[in-house]
């Protein structure tokens, strides 16, 4: 019981630490794609932190909350939201890679330079 409590509290501390680091990173960036991605990512972390916090409080106090359809583990709804957030964040990353990915352009330029040097 004690070890579960310690693990839960440690998890919450790590989660809050992650949120603080993300918020600091966000404040250094100017408006744009990367900042929007960080916003998404922060929301995901926030849901996970709320989930961990809920579990911690429950393990410490044996406090039970039950919603209709969510009896037993209503906190799982936060994990569902976190996963939805991760899907959105992943979509944003794929868009960022489309925008900022110059690999194909680079390959074509290298070919052009080669052919120009030959001629």
């Amino acid at each position, binding site marked *: 019981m004690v070890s579960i409590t310690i693990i839960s509290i440690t998890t919450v501390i790590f989660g809050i630490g992650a949120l603080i680091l993300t918020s600091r990173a966000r404040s250094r960036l*100017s408006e744009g794609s*990367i900042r929007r991605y960080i916003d998404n990512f922060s929301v995901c972390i926030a849901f996970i932190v709320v989930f961990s916090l809920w579990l911690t409080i429950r393990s410490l106090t044996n406090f039970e909350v039950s919603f209709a359809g969510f009896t037993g583990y209503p906190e799982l709804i936060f994990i569902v939201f976190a996963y939805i957030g991760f899907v959105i964040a992943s979509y944003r990353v794929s868009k960022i890679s489309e925008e900022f*990915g*110059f690999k194909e352009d*680079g*390959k074509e*330029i*290298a070919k*052009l330079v080669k052919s120009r040097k030959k001629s």
Partner: protein
Amino acid sequence: MDVKAQFKKEVSNLKDYIVLIRVNAKDYQDTNVAILKSLVNEQKTPGIYVTLNKPFEVMQRLLEKNNIDPRLIIFIDAFTDIGENKKRVKNCLYIGSPEKLSDISIAMDQAVKSLPTKEKFVFFDSINTLQVFNNPGTVMKFVHFLAAKIREWKVKGIIILISSSADEPLTNELVQFCDTKIEAGGA
């Protein structure tokens, strides 16, 4: 001495460099074309062109008119307003605004690393436009970043500064990081 000859003379002994070109508004376009001609046509070096003053389409037409192959250049267009979403076309990424310095930095980093050639250049046109959209502290920080990155990437860096009396602090800051400074068009 014309700017092209001056440029060649100044960088002849340098492999990788940062050159600050201070030019008056009247000669600005001709100077850019002359430098690009030297890099792309004569040295056959591909590179990255960050444009804050002209849209990509206009730059493309200008280069074609002057027999410079725009296909050898990756453009980062921070001039054209494209709203919230980025627009990506062949050889160009539209950033949307010179305010988005984080996006400009990441785009430059990715574009430089995507060029597999040994020799490459980064052409920044122009540094004072940033001052219109960002506060002086942020611009100074960006200048430091840009200089450090150009050294790290081991590329030829050309920074354009359109001369005006209000830009003295920026010029003084830039000169510290540059290997050489060229005054073009009687700036």
